[in-house]
């Protein structure tokens, strides 16, 4: 949808280098992402303020799951067209990929489409404005998504009867399996994992069953469910990730490594995969192999103290105490920052 918007912008502008742009756009549509990226970058090299190229490059980065780059690109585009609805929406969606609801919320607030109003209400829900979210969601045309988030909002208000009544409406608009799935997502997001498990079992979604069993601290059953999910779809990256990470946490690093390596190949942007791969190598006593993986994770997640902690441990194991101290100092600094941000004394 946003791609079309940007294409339209391009034709309106009628800028130079149209063939490069058209080829890049075609590559993007065909999911030939490296080719598309090279094309849009070439357009931007020639015309740094080409709005269409910026917009499409942002879409490309989002598709590559590089939300930080996407955000930077959309922000650059918005400096050229501050009120462009497609850019506002896409920037908001990129923030959502990082669970940064507070940054996404004002962007959606500037838009008036039903989709943007729904996204704004979701942001309100996730930033603690539960009553406002409920009021907004109740104004929207009921859809399965609206029912889903409204139910979650009621759960957050400790109003389980209304949540359950709202979820019941899903069954009149969706096939039972999908309704069970969405119901399970509500309970899962509300950390009511026993209820989530019951719903997911009704839906037959083995991946969600496995993830929920992880949360219920039933690792053997979780691993079995995730393996079933992988038997159904060997390329399910999410199942590979959860099973690999679970095995690492359960001190079974060897079988985790091929799973996590597969995820890394498909999704090199995920810092969590590098983290668990590094931790697996640490468990195997191979700090030399662990360190670059953990350093990659730390580079991609610079604000996650636990990642820096593992970097420190790997450096200690390698007999590099001075560098380890730097990593631990980073952990301490992040912990202090986190605590200082929460200070609420009057």
């Amino acid at each position: 949808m946003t791609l079309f918007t940007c294409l339209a912008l391009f034709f309106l502008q009628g800028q130079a280098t149209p063939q490069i742009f058209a080829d890049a756009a075609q590559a993007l549509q065909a999911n030939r992402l490296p080719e598309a990226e090279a094309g849009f970058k070439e357009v931007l090299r020639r015309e740094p303020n080409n709005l269409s190229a910026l917009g499409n490059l942002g879409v490309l980065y989002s598709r590559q799951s590089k939300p930080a780059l996407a955000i930077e690109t959309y922000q650059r585009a918005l400096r050229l067209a501050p009120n462009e609805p497609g850019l506002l929406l896409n920037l908001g969606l990129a923030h959502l990929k990082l669970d940064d609801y507070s940054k996404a919320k004002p962007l959606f607030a500037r838009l008036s489409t039903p989709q943007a109003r729904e996204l704004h209400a979701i942001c309100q829900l996730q930033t603690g404005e539960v009553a406002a979210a409920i009021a907004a969601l109740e104004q929207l045309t009921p859809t399965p998504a609206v029912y889903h988030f409204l139910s979650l909002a009621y759960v957050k208000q400790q109003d389980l009867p209304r949540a359950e009544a709202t979820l019941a409406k899903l069954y009149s608009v969706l096939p039972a399996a999908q309704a069970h799935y969405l119901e399970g997502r509500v309970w899962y997001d509300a950390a009511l994992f026993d209820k989530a498990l019951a719903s997911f079992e009704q839906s037959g979604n083995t991946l969600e069953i496995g993830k929920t069993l992880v949360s219920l601290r039933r690792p053997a059953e979780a691993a079995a469910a995730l393996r079933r999910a992988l038997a159904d779809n060997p390329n399910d990256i999410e199942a590979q990730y959860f099973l690999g990470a679970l095995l690492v946490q359960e001190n079974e690093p060897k079988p985790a490594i091929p799973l996590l390596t597969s995820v890394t190949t498909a999704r090199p942007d995920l810092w969590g995969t590098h983290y668990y791969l590094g931790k697996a190598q640490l468990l195997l006593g191979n700090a030399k192999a662990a360190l670059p993986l953990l350093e990659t994770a730390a580079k991609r997640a610079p604000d996650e103290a636990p990642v820096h902690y593992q970097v420190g441990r790997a450096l200690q194991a390698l007999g590099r105490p001075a560098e380890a101290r730097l990593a631990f100092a980073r952990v301490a600094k992040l912990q202090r920052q986190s605590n200082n941000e929460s200070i609420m004394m009057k």
Partner: protein
Amino acid sequence: MPFSRRDLLALFFQGVASRGVKPQPKGKPSGLPFKSRFTDVAAAAGLSAPVIYGGVDRKDYLLETIGSGVAFLDYDNDGWLDLFIPSGARFGTNPPEAINRLYKNNRDGTFADVTLKAGLARQGWACGVAVADYNNDGFDDIFVSYWGQNVLYRNNGDGTFTDVTKESGLLLPQRHWTTGCTFVDTNRDGHLDLFLSTYVDFDPARIPKPGENPNCNWKGIAVNCGPRGLTQGRFFLFRNNGKGVYADVTKAAGLAEARAYGLTAIAADFDEDGWPDLYAACDSVSSVYFRNKRDGTFEEEALPRGVAVNEDGMEQAGMGLGVGDYNLDGHLDLFKTHFSDDTHILYRNDGQGNFTDATKVSGLGVETRYVGWGAGIVDLDNDGRPDLFVASGAVYPEIEAKLPAYPYKNPRIIFRALPSGAFEELIDEAGPGIAAAHSSRGCAFGDFDNDGDLDILIMNMNEPVSLLRNDADPTANWLKVLLTGTKSNRSAIGAQVRLRYGARVQVQEVLSQSSYLSVNDRRLHFGLGAVKTADVEIRWPSGARQTFARVEANHLLLINETSGITARLRPPFLLKP
């Protein structure tokens, strides 16, 4: 594919690591009998006064929630353990019975409240207690930490105490919420210094009301605020000049910059260099480890030494600390209790003060339901393998009505040591005193009835204390050691006793605070199982060493730093007729 930051962190926060942790599944029961049974004999012993601590049904301030420690001590040197119970208070009208209490052991299973006679009646928000002979006059003194001013009570040796806080230089320049307190001879001059931790900068007028802030909610229900969101506490070190007068050397010692929500404070020589190190369990943030640099200064090294966080690098809500040698390798390990939805943690020491998180491999991940406070690495069944003990209790009494899954009162927990080296959780199997539900805080381990096993004294919020009498297997052997320093401080705080029995070796250290803000019996207790003799090696704080070979089991050894073993007493260890 819906991968977001939350997905990446899912395994941290939703079940595998340290927050929101669900318990590991329990394995099959070992089938091995636990030859020890605990019965609460507090009422029969005359311990009927409730320990007042904040509101009963709701608590508007964090101050009302943390409770206090308790102490086993022998204030009159008669060889029988007496009890000291610090008291909290109540906002609004403070009941007159809300006073610290001293109970004298009547040597017949009962106690007499001698608080008024001893001059120890005091109201206020007491938290922690430390016991030691700070002036080396032969009688144990008592330090009590408070929100407000702390108090040092000098034991006059005649059954009375005198508040000497001001003349000993321990008055703080302003009000603090001191929690952890432990005597420690940091410079090994034979005089006990004092290490303190404070919790938060607490002023009721400046703290949001329940529900006013995201940190003032728990599971969606408005509760009192903190500690997260409140200004962190700090640490103090006071040096004893040898004449019973203290000087604040916090800054010179390098402790002034550290900040944390400090609770239980301990001092022990973890890196085995002969100098005591300092450690504090800290709530919600990294715990702190101050390595003694042997020149009067300390270096904070909790992260590199592996005792700040858990193996996943996650901060935990540290409350109480057990110190002991759980794996019988001759090194002091640490057991730290935490909030619910998290495991307690067991840190294994390599002997050089570097620790490894051994929680999962030891089987402790099976229990995450309760908030843990008092803690011990103690051999409860005298089988020669130290067990773990946890006193538990929720902090928000108002939650239970809305969320019945989170009761305010919880059972105690024993993790009994198995021959495999792992632990097995016991509640109902260890007697009614363990299974009974209370909202407990501090606990202390000691042999109040002098019968050769460890009993447990437990503080319960707004209830009388529990006194759990241990009826352990009478065929299992044991050995107790009571040390008296001459060149070292008289209480022998910081002395390490290493016992070799059969193929095992176990080390313990004399501490003046551990568990949760509490004081254990200063007589070190070793279960020996079937073994009937042990070799005893003592390393005194002065550096002096003594060894005693093939000591017969089932005795209390009185050992003097200069003259060696002065008495071998069989139960009931009477020192005076």
